[in-house]
């Protein structure tokens, strides 16, 4: 049972890293970006291709995946996304679905539609077991690695948001864009860097998750709903909300698939609908912020 909890937490942390960029950009720009999964896919494929074709070690691939996705995100923000801020949500939805379709078809064209396999380094393959009986905790080393990396990233993000000058500018822009701009904060630069970092984090998440989630061209469509659940349930005004939502989702999903495999993803979706009907603004909403 503890093993399931552990796997669920690892899965949830991974989802958090994948979705946190989406949460921040959505809160910041009120932009519904369904193409977020595409950046994660880019990161995953960078890792896979570098490892398979160029033999780059796994740990080196991770920062490269981050960089690649961040650069792509930055370029797209400058050229395409920024024209759509303030447009109706329908336009944003259509635009990002279009981008997703393009990403799926291009990856299919250049790499092929089969699922890619990551060769993990030896030291990540093992498994440690603690305790015994019903309370046995089996920890896959790779999942442990994911939890450690994601926890470090989360603490880092929280630090940046809470303590640094950039963090306070970002929070000010999320709360009220116009007043922030009026106070002399260059909101455009904040948007740009946040979008790039968010895409980069998605890329990193995709690279980390390539083994756990599986990487094939339909990745952005398959996991789009999960990212959106994290954001919609967690709310967009803080990063602790999405974090808790992601862990909850991870545990619910792993436990549901383990105990009641017949129902599959059913539990997660029903839970999401119930939560959203009950609290339409998300579970963890800070009072006083912009809705």
């Amino acid at each position, binding site marked *: 049972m503890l093993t399931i909890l552990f796997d669920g937490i690892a899965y949830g942390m991974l989802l958090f890293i994948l979705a946190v960029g989406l949460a921040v950009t959505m809160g910041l720009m009120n932009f519904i970006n369904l193409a977020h999964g595409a950046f994660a896919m880019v990161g995953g494929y960078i890792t896979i291709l570098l490892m398979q074709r160029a033999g780059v070690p796994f740990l080196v691939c991770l920062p490269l995946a981050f960089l690649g996705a961040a650069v792509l995100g930055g370029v797209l923000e400058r050229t395409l996304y920024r024209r759509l801020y303030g447009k109706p949500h329908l336009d944003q939805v259509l635009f990002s679905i279009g981008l997703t379709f393009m990403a799926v078809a291009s990856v299919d064209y250049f790499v092929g539609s089969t699922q890619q396999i990551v060769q993990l380094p030896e030291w990540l393959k093992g498994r440690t077991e603690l305790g015994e009986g019903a309370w046995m905790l089996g920890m896959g080393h790779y999942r442990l690695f994911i939890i450690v990396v994601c926890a470090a990233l989360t603490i880092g993000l929280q630090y940046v948001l809470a303590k640094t000058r950039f963090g306070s500018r970002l929070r000010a822009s999320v709360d009220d864009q116009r007043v922030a701009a009026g106070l002399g904060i260059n909101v455009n630069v904040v948007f740009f860097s946040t979008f790039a970092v968010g895409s980069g984090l998605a890329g990193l998440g995709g690279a980390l998750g390539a083994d756990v989630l599986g990487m094939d061209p339909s990745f952005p469509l398959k996991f789009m709903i999960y990212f959106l659940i994290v*954001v919609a349930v967690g709310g967009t005004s803080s990063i602790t909300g999405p974090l808790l939502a992601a862990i909850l989702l991870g545990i619910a999903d792993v436990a549901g698939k383990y105990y009641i495999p017949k129902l599959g993803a059913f539990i997660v979706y029903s839970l999401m609908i119930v939560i959203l*009907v009950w609290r339409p603004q998300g579970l963890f909403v800070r009072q006083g912020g912009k809705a």
Partner: protein
Amino acid sequence: MNAAGRWRWWELVLWVAALASPFLLSRHALIINEIAIVALFALSLDLILGYTGIVSLGHAAFFGMGAYSAALFAKHVMPDPLVGLLVGIATATVLGAVCSATILRGTDLTRLMVTLGVGLILMELANKLDWLTGGADGLQGVVMGPLLGRFEFDLSGQVASVYSLTVLLLLFVLARRLVQSPFGATLKAIRDNRLRAMAIGIPVSQRLAVIYTVAAGAAGAAGALLAQTTGFASLDVFEFHRSADVMLMLVIGGVGWLYGGIAGAVVFKLMQDVLSNITPQYWTFWIGLFLVVLVLVGRERLVRPWTWFKPAKPAGESKT
């Protein structure tokens, strides 16, 4: 009836041409049938997207519900198409009434998620209940009886396309009547300013629930037509890309006037046909590119080529 509600001459010409098309272009009857079905589907989405502004990414839920219930009804109860169609509409309407409770609150994002979730849940259900629906293999062995007891569904699709076009016409007339009634006027008021609509005493939640239910029923009719004319229902009817495609059709044709869905369906289906002939596997890329260009350039400019080389009008205040 007011001036906007009157039938214009081109509408009559259009419908006569549409109903004659299966006979004039009998070799293309199958694609005419498909177009009529997706046009009905797009029409139903227009009722909620165009007239109330609810962005739904899960409209395929009702389409699939109609398809599966019509197919199951034909297989296990009786093969008469018209009764089956009514059953399909009825189940989708009931589902719509249940789901309408979920779209009343929250932001665009919440509604997007909830509609998407409903679609995914139904797909999971159809997948897991394989003793009933055939699971991933689809529901096979659906044999339809003759239409009105006289016209057998033929392989060339002539009967099927006339059938679908007639249902499309009937539901179109109903939808038209609905949106031009005082009821429709309150819907537009809700779309344009929900708060103000509430302030002048329009029961917003009730109106939204009713139109959502009606739209679900129409989508169910489209699904039932698909299952009946192809004699098959598979998980494909619930797929996300169906909801996305139908939204694209509607946007091509223009939201908020009922012909938008029909025009969009024609353009989209022909485009899909041409593109998938050129690149069978990668045509979604071009659909995606088209979507991106459509949004960036703006639909208004894209469908009016003569404005391409004029300077753009100064943009007004963006809507908040």
